[in-house]
């Protein structure tokens, strides 16, 4: 039964992926946070991929900034999670049996604060000893997602996010 299943497809998963973002604008203080509990899975054959992250899991150096992030911008009690549901469009180009760095592109819906938006994100899959690591950088237009007003230029209108997920 094992071999029967293995022939079809494989789901790679992690619960300890990392995502960090930087939304520093003209503000003197850096607006940065990191979340080390990204939940992600992808299927090697279909390229179907999901990321899910708890908004309150983003840790800031400044606890007050963290409060404001949750309270004023993300409304994280109402919208506790952000997620991405999509497909790696060129998954066929990745050989999971061979170590190497493969350029990939994912297309799907990014949902933050209950608002969804279609995005295409370029990234890489690094295969090492049969284990893939996905790395991607994306620019998140905050005005499309965050709630309420934000302080003019103090916060950048595009948050630069970096994702690193090592799958098992």
């Amino acid at each position, binding site marked *: *039964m*094992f071999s029967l*299943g*293995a022939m*079809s*497809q*494989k*789901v*790679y*998963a*992690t*619960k300890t992926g990392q995502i*960090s973002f930087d939304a520093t604008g003209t*503000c003197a*203080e*850096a607006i*940065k*946070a*990191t979340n*080390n509990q990204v*939940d992600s*899975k*992808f*299927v090697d054959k279909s390229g*179907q*991929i*999901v990321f*899910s992250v*708890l908004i*309150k899991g983003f*840790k*800031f*150096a*400044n*606890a*007050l*900034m*963290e*409060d*404001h992030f*949750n*309270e*004023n911008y993300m*409304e994280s*009690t*109402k919208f*506790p*999670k952000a*997620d991405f*549901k999509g497909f790696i469009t060129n998954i066929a180009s990745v050989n999971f049996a061979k170590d190497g760095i493969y350029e990939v592109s994912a297309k799907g819906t990014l949902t933050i604060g209950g608002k969804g938006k279609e995005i295409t994100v370029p990234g890489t899959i690094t295969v090492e000893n049969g284990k893939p690591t996905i790395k991607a950088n994306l620019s998140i237009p905050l005005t499309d997602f965050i709630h*309420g*007003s934000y*302080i003019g230029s*103090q916060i950048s209108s595009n948050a630069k996010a970096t994702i690193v997920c090592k799958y*098992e």
Partner: protein
Amino acid sequence: MKIVFKKQLLVLCLVIMATCKMAIAQDVDLFKSLDEQDKKDKANQTDYTTAIFKTTRMINGQSIENVGSGVLDVKISHRFTPINAGAKGLWGLDGANMRMGVDYGINSKLMVGVGRTKFGLFDGFAKYKLIRQSTGKVTMPVSVALSAGVIWSTDKTGTYNNYTDRFNYSIQAIIARKFNDYVSLQVVPTVIHYNSVEKSSIPNNFYSVGLGGRLRLTKRVNLTAEYYYRITKPDDFTYAGSKPVNCLSVGFDIETGGHVFQFHFSNSPDMNDRSFINETVSKWNVDAVRFGFNIARVFVVNKPKEVKL
């Protein structure tokens, strides 16, 4: 027969997925499983309520909030003279009682603070968060904190000759609940201890209960109110020759990034627990109410270890 086999396979696959995290499965729909996971997580995770109030002070007294771990909070507070001074006296802004202080978060549960109020009144406190309001797996209706403060007066007049006579203490239990994004309330049973009192008929311990609340007007502005009801009211206890009354303060919290501005009206000119709770002598009327503010600015002194940026 075939259907039964498929079902068994699916069950087996789910077990493998759960244990190995590396799953072998057929026709997996990750979108569907993510939605199901979200539903499960909602029940299994504990969501701690944050930002019950905007800052660590309700108005004059403590709120349930702590400063974050490794964060230094500089607080400058003024209480002006009564607004009935009119235009000539700039509605009381000519004269002010003043407190300067710093608070520091030792960890996410414990904070300490020190301050000095005009003239020569030093205070210090420690506040510890015992219970956090939460929903989800652990449901807790309220947050609870304990605060212990000491006030030391350098003023040697009156009966307070001895060094030890000039100490006062306050112990408070702060019980707070955020009802929704707009309304939070707190109840604060309080004991004020005087090391020395003027007459033997006056007790050393004074009991009172504080009530505080906020109404969120916009994301950055809260309407706040604080009232302390005195339970211990000995007949011959006076302050500056007058009988004390209960202290009521009403104001606004305005938050702008790293600053919190609190503007308010109160019948007390004081900012120390002992003074504003027990020694407010002016009734809430136009002749006594005064304008005041607290300005708080936070600085990150010590970054938490888990935050690697």
